[in-house]
């Protein structure tokens, strides 16, 4: 191989890189000239170890081995600012989503919150569990107190459809 990262002695993984590019349907979304606007405006920048422009560049160069197994790709809050404002219509967001999917496929460690969200949907049909809230008068109330209709758990068929869609995506 003609390229080595001397800081970690890593080599490009062209196979994985091509998998990522396939998920992105080509190079359009990683066609970046490093103006670094995405990183300048990134909502989650302070929590990120790698910056959006770095992630794109790493994919371009093929240094992708560490990416799916790292925590970095899960910190993105998917605000889409980078996509909206990129002068070259590249998208760090799409790259991160592709990396997340690859991580799942590789059965890499997925942060708990994400797994919880999935089981939550399966069980309740909701992304968030309904919670009790505190009103301005400092009273704790729930849906029942507010006389809101009760939310029923999803029908059995929903779970089947959900799982089927997941399977199809994987394939």
């Amino acid at each position, binding site marked *: 191989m*003609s390229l*080595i990262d001397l800081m970690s002695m890593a080599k490009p993984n062209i196979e994985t890189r091509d998998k990522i590019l396939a998920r992105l349907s080509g190079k359009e979304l990683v066609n970046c000239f490093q103006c670094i606007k995405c990183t300048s405006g990134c909502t989650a920048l302070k929590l990120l170890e790698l910056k959006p422009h*770095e992630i794109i*560049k790493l994919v371009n160069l093929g240094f992708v081995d560490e990416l799916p197994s790292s925590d970095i790709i899960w910190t993105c809050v998917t605000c889409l600012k980078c996509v909206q404002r990129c002068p070259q219509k590249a998208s760090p967001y799409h790259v991160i989503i592709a990396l997340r999917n690859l991580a799942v496929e590789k059965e890499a460690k997925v942060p708990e919150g994400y797994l919880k969200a999935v089981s939550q949907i399966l069980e309740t049909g909701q992304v968030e569990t309904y919670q009790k809230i505190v009103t301005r008068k400092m009273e704790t109330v729930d849906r029942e107190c507010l006389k809101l209709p009760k939310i029923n758990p999803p029908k059995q068929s929903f779970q089947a459809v959900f799982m089927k869609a997941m399977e199809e995506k994987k394939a």
Partner: protein
Amino acid sequence: MARVGVYVCHCGLNIAGVVDVEKVAEYAKTLPGVVVTKHYTYMCSEPGQRMIQDDIKAKKLDRIVIATCSPRMHEETFRRAVAEAGLNPYLTEIVNLREQVSWAHIHEPGKATEKAKALVRMGVARARLLEPLEKHRVSVEKSVLVVGGGIAGIQASLDLANAGFPVYLVEKAPSIGGRMAQLDKTFPTLDCSACILTPKMVEVTKHPNITMLTNAEVTDVKGFVGNYEASILKKPRYVDEKRCVGCELCTKVCPVKVPDKFNENLAETRAISIYSAHAAPKIATINPDHCLRLKHDKGVCGKCQEACEAKAINFEQQPETIQVKVGGVVLAVGSEVFNALEMAELGYGRFKNVVSNIEFERISDASGPTGGKILSPKDGKTPRTIAFIQCVGSRDKRFHEYCCRVGCMVTLKQAILAREKVHENVRIYVCYIDMRAFGKGYDEFYRRARDMDIDFVAGLPSEIHATSDGSLYFDVYDKGTNKLLQIHADLVVLGTGLVPNKNLADVSALFHASRSADGFLLEAHPKLKPLESAMAGVFLAGACQGPKDIPDTVAQASGAAAKAMDLLSQGEIELEPLKAIVDEDLCSGCKICAPICPFLAIEMKTDIVDGKERPRAEVIEAVCQGCGLCSSTCPTGAIKIQQYSNKQVMTQVEAALAETCAEGGK
């Protein structure tokens, strides 16, 4: 007694922001001879000019002092305005309050105002002694000398010839075409360079108004704008130009192998050869440094002479000097490519697989040494990794401080060509500082390169190494990923920039066209006169004025041709009257002035007075540029420059010192 009007210009806030213009105008009123003083926002504007014209008529002014920007900027404007009002235009004096006062002393407004007053005082003192002068008209030669047969010279020649002006096109090499002929494709359209250049070359050779002189050099230039006389040395080809049919039978039999200059010495040609596949004229030339017959004696070799069916070989051919009379000159002598040997850290010259971008052009060109296949020069194999390194010799204070303007686009083009020509698996890296893709369609071209899986590394390597098996590698820190990368490459292409020709100093001396700090020829004004040199009638086209790509070169060449037509189309031109004149009674004929004149404008004449020979100097008015060297050298004070006589200058000096002395006495 002269009646002087003084006009102080604000130049917006350029002058008024520093100098107290009101005070200066007020002060000017106290000076002897001053009748009117005014100050105004923009003196050069239409109402400003009208103000002066009205005063000339109403107040019968006969001397005008304008305190404004540099005379290089608006002296002509104001002279014209004054002439329109019926006054001799040379009775105008410009005082420079902008470049020499407000811009120079921006943080010292008080002192700047005092300096402005002193300069106005000097201007008024001088203005009172100005004399009316008349412009002279001289007829011009309606033909043009174009020096250099690259794309700039070709374009300028064709434009001039099509407009009906006879053109002498002089090219140093045995064929016209220049650098562009060496290129494979052109950015950003990937047009084949030869396909778009060759028809123009053929047009030049066939055009009835163009006299094409190849293998020739200009050796001497005399005369002045509109009436230049040039000597052109036509070096012998040792081949009869009229007989040679370009069949190349001679090349096939010639036993002497010679490095091929057209192919950047990557291939060999013979001592008798045709310059390139697309050469125009397609005539063989013998290289006298290598030909056995020419180097030794008559008995040796002579195989080409035997082989030539057209009987065109002539070992007795002599150099020939041709004299031409032309009205104007277009300098289109082009540029060279930076010699990467100077930058030792990149290993050019030490490693065969490190090549310059012009060498890569030849490697990629179908008529080049590899037949258009991209192969490493060292082993002739297809490279699996190609690395391009940018800004070699440019943007580098050790070599050339300027940006070469073409390097980024050349590399993008070559990277795209490599991607298209070499198999898909080749890795291509471009190490750069900034990617400058500024022209029409250029940034789109950059995007296209990124789409073709070419990797851009934001950083330059410090040095190139070779492993024991000869393969190359280098370390480069990428700003994009904050990683130190190591790249192993089979072929390293250096993005060498354009640099001034080695003999540009000679060209500059020959045509009195000065050079800028970067070594290229200097335009008369960087914004408003980009096509002219400071020497009247000498125009600039192409990369000899500064690094340029093909579109810019062609545009400038057409522009320079239009400028030459503008100069010559009337058949006569006006000459400035600010020249040296000799007082015959005072001239002692000492001859000191003649060799000092940089323009060779002084001739020694001999009169017969009372039966005795009496030498005296005479100024050829049309050649004189009014520089004043002769005047300050003349021991008897016989030579004066119109409008800069001793009296005029000394009065100005006295005015400068007048108030300083008074203050000193206080």
